[in-house]
């Protein structure tokens, strides 16, 4: 009984994670794999992720520019983690703050309506 209830929940949570960025879920398992075989050569070429804010020299992450913030919010309204977007720690912190402020003033959703 317990197994039956737990198994359906796993597939439902997976597509939700894969929704925001397709490169995300695929990024994790292969990341660990190349180290296993050792010098087997790279099977998956992955572009180096860079922090958008460092590269484009965006100093202030403001809660008002929804366009910018929307790039870092998943479909369901979640803040996309750093490991998927490549944003640096400092900017992710500011970004999270800005997104939360924007949510408070109804510029961004807390959760997408369904």
């Amino acid at each position, binding site marked *: 009984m317990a197994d039956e209830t737990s198994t359906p929940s796993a597939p439902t949570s997976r597509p939700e994670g894969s929704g925001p960025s397709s490169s995300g879920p695929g990024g994790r398992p292969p990341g660990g794999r190349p180290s296993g075989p050792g010098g087997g050569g790279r099977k998956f070429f992955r572009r180096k992720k860079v922090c958008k804010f460092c590269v484009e020299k965006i100093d202030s992450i403001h809660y008002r520019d929804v366009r910018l913030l929307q790039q870092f919010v998943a479909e369901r309204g979640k803040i996309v983690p750093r490991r998927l977007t490549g944003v640096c720690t400092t900017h992710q912190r500011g970004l999270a703050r800005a997104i939360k*402020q924007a949510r408070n003033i109804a*510029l961004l*959703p807390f959760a997408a309506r369904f």
Partner: protein
Amino acid sequence: MQRTYEVMFIVRPDILDEDLDKLIAGLEGNITAGGGSIKSVEKLGRRKLAYTVKKFNDGNYVLLTIHADGSLVGEIERRLRVSEPVIKFISVRMDEEEKRVAKIKAIRATRKKLSAQPAAPPPAAVEPAAAPASTEAATA
């Protein structure tokens, strides 16, 4: 202590333009009377809300940038909470952020000067870069 704040609030969409102007004028009066000053008033216009607020799906956004001290901002917030047409508001302190941005800009400006002044060094910089590379190749 005077600080810079941004006060953004949403007014219900079915309000008349004159009433909105009156509301903003009233707030301005409160701010100036309380010892603050107004930097800018921006009407961002009607926008769709990301979620339903008090059964409204649209709202008129208004942004005030003010110089005021904390107690005055508290007072303005109280007024916004009480005033019926305002459905949501947020006040954010901006001066720290502005200071930080100014600092970064200053640093960037000095860096640019350094790179602009010595026009000759670049070839010199290439040589040391090339040298370690050759030593690396030798060790390898």
